């Protein structure tokens, strides 16, 4: 073992160093300014390193640095970076009507540690690293969900997420023990060989059953999604953003890591299972989202429906599915953060609810347009980002002949259009109160334009999708 062999691990090691540095700075300065700047500069550097750095692959026994894992890591890094920026006003006195968050240093440190877990998850080459990554990617969020000081809802969100997370971790671990018993090995290559050799082993199926159960909880896939609305509503908005984008991406990545490579051989047999979960998630998410008044609950249900669409990709063939998943997560992330940006702006004075959006078209027309773009993208209206994402998912499933399922998914997408329009209706048609006009700072206006353009470009221009497909495919 020479030092040169460890250079592909550089992003992971740098992330660890960054997390430790942010926590260390937290011990010196209480105001958290230095921690914030270190975090975002570090994350931006990491993103550049992942995007343009070394392309060499490295396969240790239990840690695989591949092109696909780099794409996932880039996705996690960008989602965390966006969360860090989003959280900024929530730590300022008067930045949010719900109350000011404290302890920004630990907050950023926990986000980075969480990201370390996600990194391990997508690089996992055996089930132990997989499990530890999953656990590390979940555990900091237990604390983050309860971050709103002296807030009963936030405390409830934290305790609910702990219970659900602990239960799902136990299920996952139980499943892993079955897989180990069935195959006699923890490594993915040996696992793959064993699955090929004896695909009908009941112990193997017991393991897969429990694993799917555990991951289903993390993914908030119906019928295991009950925790999501309460946790999303109770958690502070930046944490909800992290949960719904980065953490969701990590859960999807976990599913893809296991079922698109070592357990690929059993995926055709699992198709009815994934199909049922997909339909249930779409229906439960869409029905739930219609009745919501609170924007955070609304996001929760809408993300359950999005998980349903993403599960369609598990029915397609390997490489196309992975590309569709990554692209869909990117578009969902951009759309999501655009919505959370609007929530952050209206949350400065009022509650982050539907009624808080009232009269947005008069208070700030630009924000209202961004909201419309967001909702259209979530509904999958061309030519926005969400459309291309959905199209890739649907075509991945259709390519394998699941036409009925794709039909159901399209019908659900049409239904979802109804409640996404309800949000737009609040902003444009509902009678405005006496709320004053919103003034954005120049930086915020730049973010607004950037997000709006990204929503359009990701939908119209196929180049990013192509690049992701190429990078994530091999």
């Amino acid at each position: 073992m020479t030092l040169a062999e460890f250079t592909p691990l550089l992003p992971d090691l740098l992330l660890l160093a960054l997390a430790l540095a942010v926590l260390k700075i937290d011990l010196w300065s209480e105001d958290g300014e230095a921690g914030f700047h270190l975090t975002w500069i570090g994350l931006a550097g990491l993103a550049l390193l992942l995007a343009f750095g070394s392309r060499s692959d490295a396969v240790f026994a239990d840690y695989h640095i591949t092109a696909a894992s780099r794409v996932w890591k880039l996705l996690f890094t960008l989602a965390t970076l966006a969360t860090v920026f989003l959280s900024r006003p929530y730590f300022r006195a008067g930045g949010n009507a719900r109350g000011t968050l404290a302890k920004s240093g630990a907050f950023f440190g926990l986000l980075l540690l969480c990201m370390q877990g996600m990194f391990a998850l997508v690089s996992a080459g055996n089930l132990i690293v997989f499990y530890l990554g999953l656990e590390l990617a979940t555990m900091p969020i237990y604390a983050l969900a309860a971050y709103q000081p002296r807030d009963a809802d936030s405390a409830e969100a934290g305790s609910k997420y702990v219970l659900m997370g602990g239960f799902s971790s136990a299920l996952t671990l139980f499943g892993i023990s079955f897989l180990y018993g069935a195959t006699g090995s923890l490594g993915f290559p040996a696992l793959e060989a064993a699955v090929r050799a004896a695909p009908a082993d009941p112990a193997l199926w017991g393991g897969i059953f429990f694993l799917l159960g555990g991951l289903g909880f993390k993914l908030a896939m119906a019928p295991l999604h009950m925790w999501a609305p309460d946790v999303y509503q109770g958690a502070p908005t930046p944490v909800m953003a992290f949960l719904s984008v980065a953490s969701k991406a990590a859960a999807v990545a976990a599913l893809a890591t296991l079922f698109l490579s070592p357990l690929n051989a059993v995926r055709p047999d699992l198709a009815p299972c994934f199909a049922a979960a997909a339909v249930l998630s779409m229906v439960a998410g869409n029905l739930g989202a219609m009745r919501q008044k609170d924007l955070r609950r609304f996001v929760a249900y809408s993300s359950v429906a999005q998980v349903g669409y993403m599960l369609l990709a598990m029915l397609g063939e390997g490489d196309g599915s992975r590309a569709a998943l990554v692209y869909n997560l990117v578009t969902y992330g951009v759309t999501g953060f655009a919505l959370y940006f609007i929530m952050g702006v209206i949350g400065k004075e009022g509650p982050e609810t539907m009624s808080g959006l009232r009269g947005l078209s008069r208070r700030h027309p630009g924000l209202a347009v961004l909201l419309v773009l967001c909702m259209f993208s979530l509904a999958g209206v061309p030519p926005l980002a969400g459309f291309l994402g959905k199209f890739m998912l649907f075509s991945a499933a259709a390519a394998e002949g699941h036409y009925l399922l794709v039909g159901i998914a399209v019908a659900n997408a049409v239904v979802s259009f109804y409640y996404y329009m309800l949000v737009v209706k609040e902003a444009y048609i509902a009678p405005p109160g006496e709320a004053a006009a919103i003034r954005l700072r120049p930086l915020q206006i730049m973010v607004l334009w950037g997000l709006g353009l990204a929503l359009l470009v990701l939908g119209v221009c196929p180049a990013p999708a192509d690049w992701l497909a190429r990078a994530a495919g091999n």
Partner: protein
Amino acid sequence: MTEYIIIGVFALVGILFAGAAMVFSRLAAPRFPDVGKKLNSYESGEDAIGSARIQFKIGYYLFALVFLVFDVEAVFLFPVLGVLRSAGSATASGSILSPLFVWCELLLFIAILAFALFYAWKKKVLEWE
């Protein structure tokens, strides 16, 4: 295996010894249970105030957590420290590790957890009010 059997025998003898002492004192001692304060719980001669079942302070909890973190660390250090001296030689998978490399691995593990302790200390978790 034998050493564990010895431990098991010791545990058994210990339980029997304590149990036998209790049984004998129960059989041999005269009993007049209803006289005076005999049924009160023993509090070093003082009268007991209130119930023993009170709500504990939340502060115990963080102490217990810090303890648990280092407990888990110790569990993993046991097997590693046992082979540290011989780790330079060939391992199970046949790879040869330099002693320096092994030390670096161990140092990283301990350093991260030492940082955790330092963090807890600086955040005044170790202070008792």
